[in-house]
């Protein structure tokens, strides 16, 4: 039922995600619900997340593309803009959403967020504080978490 009436734009996006995946990103729809995507993002090189494979879930609400997709990290990650539930503080997922954006651009933005943590706009206060007071140590923790939780089973 969820799959009937899938808007053409979603079908198009899905096809393109599968046929020309963005580098370091994979997204494939669930079989039961074509609006639910299993996502993997590779930790960008030169970032504390390098070498990690991060699982996310992405859901396209009924209003999509008039409303943003809902995205959440499933893999534990130490990042000032990602909380312990995996929720992501990213403007385009909230007030800066535009229907010209799409799954691909959202995931690329999340990948970029891994390269450029922004402790001034934190979601996890503690991690942000850590980042601001002792960045070297915070980065070490992030690397450690990447090894512990994101080493790809």
């Amino acid at each position, binding site marked *: 039922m969820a799959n009937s009436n899938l808007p053409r734009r979603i079908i198009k996006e899905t096809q393109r995600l599968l046929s020309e995946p963005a580098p370091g990103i994979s997204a494939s729809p669930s079989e039961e619900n074509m609006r639910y995507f299993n996502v993997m993002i590779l930790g960008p090189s030169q970032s504390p997340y390098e070498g990690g494979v991060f699982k996310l879930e992405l859901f396209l609400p009924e*209003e999509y593309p*008039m*409303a*943003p997709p809902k995205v959440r990290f499933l893999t534990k990650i130490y990042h000032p803009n990602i909380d312990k539930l995996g929720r992501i503080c990213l403007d385009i997922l909230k*007030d800066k959403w*535009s229907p*010209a954006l799409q799954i691909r651009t959202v995931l690329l933005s999340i990948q970029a967020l891994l390269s450029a943590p922004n402790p001034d706009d934190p979601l996890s206060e503690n991690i942000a504080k850590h980042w601001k007071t002792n960045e070297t140590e915070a980065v070490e923790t992030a690397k450690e978490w990447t090894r512990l939780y994101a080493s790809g089973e």
Partner: protein
Amino acid sequence: MSSSAGNTGGGGTGVNAPQPYFCYQCNRTVNITPSPTSDLVCPVCSGGFLEEVENPNPFPSPSPNPFFSFSSDASAFGASGFPLLFTTAASSGHGGGAVVDDLSALFGGAPARMSPFQDSDTFNPFAFLQNYLQTLRATGANVQFVIDSNPGDPAGFRVPTNLNLGDYFFGPGLEQLIQQLAENDPNRYGTPPASKSAVEALPLIKITEELLVSDSSQCAVCKDTFELGEEAKQLPCKHIYHSDCILPWLELHNSCPVCRHELPTDDPDYEQRSRGASTPANQSQSGGGFFSSGGGGSSNAGVSDGSGSGAMAGENPQTPRMVERRLTISLPRLFRFGSNAETSNTGSGNNNENNDGSNSANRGNQNTGSEPRQEDLD
């Protein structure tokens, strides 16, 4: 649970003494003198759904009401359980905020321990609250009352006589709940809807061959390529979209999906903030001032009248507009959320591009049905 069982149970001891019963119809405790000959009837509502009260806490198990959870099931909102009752600024210490841990501190000499059913027929909210809080504390909840003294109210804090604790949220997870509610309403985020007049005034252009080979050969919303001779809506920033693609968006937000150029809105507060912060006040005097970036200037002269140029006269440069968007939750919005989704869906299914004027007018009407924000401002 049945009234007769309770009746026979208590029958031997005090046949003529009034006993407390909880009436599920009135949702209160009443005192009834049970009679062996007739059925138990609530003296208030004459209903028969009564239960003999053995436990002095008349409140049924909290589980039926999802908002009324004070047990440790923080997992429902998925997070760290921190106990709280009302989170209002217990620590910020602004004004005359007071944290009161015991109700008797509020009510002076009221007795600390008093059964709500002790001797009167009437429900005693104070005793009930006190009792209820004790029950809560006994189960390990950390309950605090935070009362902001209101300078405009000389009488200070008053307990409403018809207080129903079921109306309040207890326990961990309040902040998570608020966030969850906020996140589930996509319309809460971002800029306000474009003004209807501005949307109606958007020109409809024919797709030319020239356009098809340009950067804007594709509608950025549906990602389909335009077809030759097709009509499309052009925003003042020159970006073009199918009517069915852009109109539902402009009903929600006033920005161009590609470049975020903002159309005027019907929200005077927003207009005041954004214009005040970015443009000189006297710009509102020029007829088509909003479309300063070009577009059909003269034909759009009427555009500004809907958005209240009077409101914009007062410029307010000290308020940056994004900061102003506050988290306010009103439950009815959640219910609208569903109907909004429906209208925008049916909207995008409509195919009356040829009849553009009435099309947007229709959308406007549909909209007032489901989007009270505009209703208020009309």
